[in-house]
C-alpha cells in the first residue's frame, strides 16, 4: 500500500498547473485560455489544502481555498465580460489575432 503523502498532492498540483499553463499558451480561443487559468487556480487550491492537511496551520488553508474559489468566480465573470467585449470590437476571440498591445 502506497502511502499517499504531501509529495503526491504537490505532484498532482504541479501537473495541473503545467496543464493550465500549457492551455493558456497553446489555445487560441480566449475561452480556452480562461479555462487554463481556472486549472492553475485549482492547482493552487490543491496546494493550499495539501499544506493545510499536512502542516499545522489549522483551518487557514481551507479558508484560503474558499477565497480562491470566490475570486475565481469573480474573475471568470469579469474575464468572460472582457471576452464578450473583445468579440464585439474585434469580431474574434482568437487571442493571437488581438495584438494591438504591440503598438
Amino acid at each position, binding site marked *: 500500500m502506497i502511502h499517499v503523502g504531501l509529495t503526491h498532492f504537490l505532484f498532482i498540483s504541479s501537473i495541473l498547473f503545467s496543464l493550465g499553463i500549457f492551455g493558456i499558451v497553446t489555445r487560441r480561443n480566449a475561452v480556452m485560455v480562461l479555462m487554463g487559468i481556472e486549472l492553475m487556480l485549482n492547482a493552487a487550491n490543491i496546494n493550499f489544502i495539501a499544506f493545510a492537511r499536512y502542516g499545522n496551520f489549522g483551518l487557514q488553508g481551507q479558508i484560503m481555498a474558499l477565497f480562491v474559489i470566490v475570486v475565481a468566480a469573480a474573475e471568470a465573470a469579469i474575464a468572460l465580460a472582457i471576452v464578450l467585449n473583445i468579440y464585439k470590437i474585434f469580431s474574434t476571440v482568437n487571442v493571437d489575432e488581438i495584438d494591438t*498591445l504591440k503598438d
Partner: protein
Amino acid sequence: MTEFNLIQIAVAILFLPLVGFAFVLFFGKKIKNAYLFEISIITVTFILTAVLLFNKLSWFPDKNIVSEFSWIRIQNLAVLGNISIDLGFLLDNLSVIMIFTVALISMLVHIFSIAYMKGDRLYNRYFAYLGLFTFSMSGIVLTHNILMMYIFWELVGISSYLLIGFWYEKKSASDAGKKAFLVNRIGDIGMFSGIMLIFNTYHTFTFDKIFTQMAAGTLPFNSEFWLTVTGLLLFCGAVGKSAQFPLHVWLPDAMEGPTPVSALIHAATMVAAGVFLVCRIYPILTGNALFIIAVIGALSAVIPATIALTQNDIKKVLAYSTVSQLGYMVMALGVGAYKFAFFHLITHAFFKACLFLGSGSVIHAMHHEQDITKMGGLKKKLPLTYATFLIASLALSGIPLTSGFLSKDGILQGTFAFASLTGHWLFPAAGFAVAMLTAFYMFRLIILTFHGEPKNKEKYDHAHESPFVMAMPLVVLSTLSIFFWYTPNPVNADAGWFLSKWIKSPVLSVPQNARYSFMKTDVVSSVSKEGIADINNSTTVEGKEIVYSEAYTEAMHHAHYPAMFLSLLVAALGIVFAFIFYYWKKISADKLAADIEPLYKLSFNKWYFDEIYNATAVAFTMGSSRFLAWFDMNIVDGAVNGVATVTRWTSSFTGKFDSVIVDGLVNLVAYFSGFIGLILRRFQTGKVQTYLVLVVFSLVIILYLFKTF
C-alpha cells in the same frame, strides 16, 4: 521785519523766477500769453527785493543775516572726520544791493522785451529763459557758500548759452553760444579746482567758516604760495564769467543774442558775477594774487578799449566797452579799492544796461540795422532814446553829476594811491588812458548814430520812436545813472550813504606777511577774531575797523583831487577828440587810419585774438582730437577687432568640436539604443501568450537562480 522775515523774502526772491520759468516752459505752447505770467512774477520779485533792500539797510545795516541748513552730513569719514555740507543764504549789504540791481534790471529787460521780441517764433520760451537766468543769478548773489555759488554759476552759464543761441537757426548765433559756453568752461575748471583746494583744506564750503579758519592760521598745504594759487584759481572763474583777458573773446560774440539779453546778461548782471565773486572771496586773496588780478584787470581794461575805437557794430562797441569796464573793476579790486569796484559794478550795471537797451531801441527803429556807419541823424527821430543814451554815455565817460563819474573817479583814485605807495605807475596810466579812450569811443558812437546826416535814407525815414514799454526802462535806467541815488555830493562819493554806510571793506583773513605791504594792519591785536569772522566787518566797533593801514587811506585821500581833475581832463579830451574827428570833421578819421594802418588794423581785427586762438588753442584741440580719433579708430578699434577675430576663431573651433565630437557621441549613443531597440522589438509581439511564455521562462530561470535547495 525780523531777520526771519528777510530770509523768507530771500527764499521767495530766489524761487519765484524758477516758478515763472517752469510755468512758461510747460504751458508756453498752450497758453498764448504765458509770458505775462513771467513778467508779473518778475515784477513781484522786484518788489520783494526792494522790500528786502529797504529793510536790510534800515534795520540791519551792520548785520549779516545767515540762514543755513545741512544738505549732506557724513560722519566718521576716515580722513575728513565729520563733514556737513551746508546750503544757505547770506544777506549782507553786498548781496541785497546786488540782488536789487539784478531784479530791477531783469524786470526792466522783461518789460523792454515785450516790444522788442514781439512776433518772435519762440516768444514765450524767451521769457522762460529770462526767468531761468534770473533764478540762477539770484542764487549766485544770495548764497552763503561757494559750492552753491558754483552750482548757480553753471546754471547762469547754461541760461546764458540758451539766450545767446536763442536765434539758433542763425549759424553765427549758435556758434557764439557754443563759444561762450566753452570759453566759460575754461575759467570754471580753474574755479572748480580752487573750490576743491578750499574744501581739501577747510572741509567746508561756507565763506565765513573759511575766513575764520584762515584767520586762525590754516592755509592750503600750510603755505602762502598755495593760498595765492587758490585765490587765483577761484579768480579763474571770474576771468571766464566776467570776460577778462585772455578769456574775453566770448563776450563780443555773445552779441549775437537778442539785444535785451545783452543788456541783462552781458552787460549788467552775469558778467558782473565774476566781479561779485572776487568781492566775496576778497579776504582770502594774498598780495601776490591781488597783483596778478590787477594786471589782468588792467590788460582787460586797455586792450578792449582800443578795439572798441574802430568797431562799427553798435553792439560790438558796447561789448568791448563792457569788457573794458569790467577790467576796470577787477583792476580796482586788485589795487585794493574794494568799495569803488563794487560801486562801479552797480553804477555800471545801470548805465550799461541803459546803453544796451538804448542800442536795442535804435536797432529796433532801424529794422535790425546794427552798423553805425549806416546810421546818423537819429536824434530827431528818436529823441527819448537819444537823451537817455546820452546820459548813460556821459556816465560811462565819467562826466560829473553822473554816477559813473563817482565810481570811475574812485577807481582811478585807488590806482593812483596804489601807485604812490608801491611805485607801479602803469596802473593809473592804464586807468587814465582807458578813461580817455572810453570817452572817445562813446562819443564816436553817439555822433555817428544820432548826429550828422542819415546815411541810409530809406531806413531813416521808416525809423520811429520806440513804444512805451521800451522807453520806460530807458528812462528808469538813465535816471539811476545820476549821482543822487548814491551820494548827496556830486564830486565826492566818500561821504555818501553808498560808500560810508552800505559798503564796507572786508577784513582780510590772509596772514600779515602775505598781504600788500600797505594792507598790513599795524596793530595785530586789532584784527580781533570777531572782526575776522565777518566779511563786511560789521560787528567791529566803528572807528576801530582797521582794514587798510593809515597809509592807504591817506594815499586815497591825497589822490582824490589829482585823480578827479586828471580823469575829468582826459574824459573831456576824449570827447573833444571825438567831436573833432566825427562831428566837425577837422581831421579825417579815415586818413588817420590810413596813416597808422598797422595799428588801425590791429584794433579793427580785435588784436587778432580769435585768429591767435584759432591757430593755437583751437588748432591744438582739433589736432589732439584728430589724433585721439585716429587712436580710437586704429588702436582701440583694432584691439577690439583683434579680440573679435580671436573670439570668432575660438567659436568656430568649439563649434566644430560640438558638431563633430559631442554630437557624434550623442548620435552614437542614440544609434546604439536604436540598435538594441531593434533587437528588443522582436520580443514585443503584442500577443499575450508570448508574454506569458516569457514570464514563465523567466520565472523558471529566476527560480533556478535563487534556488535554496
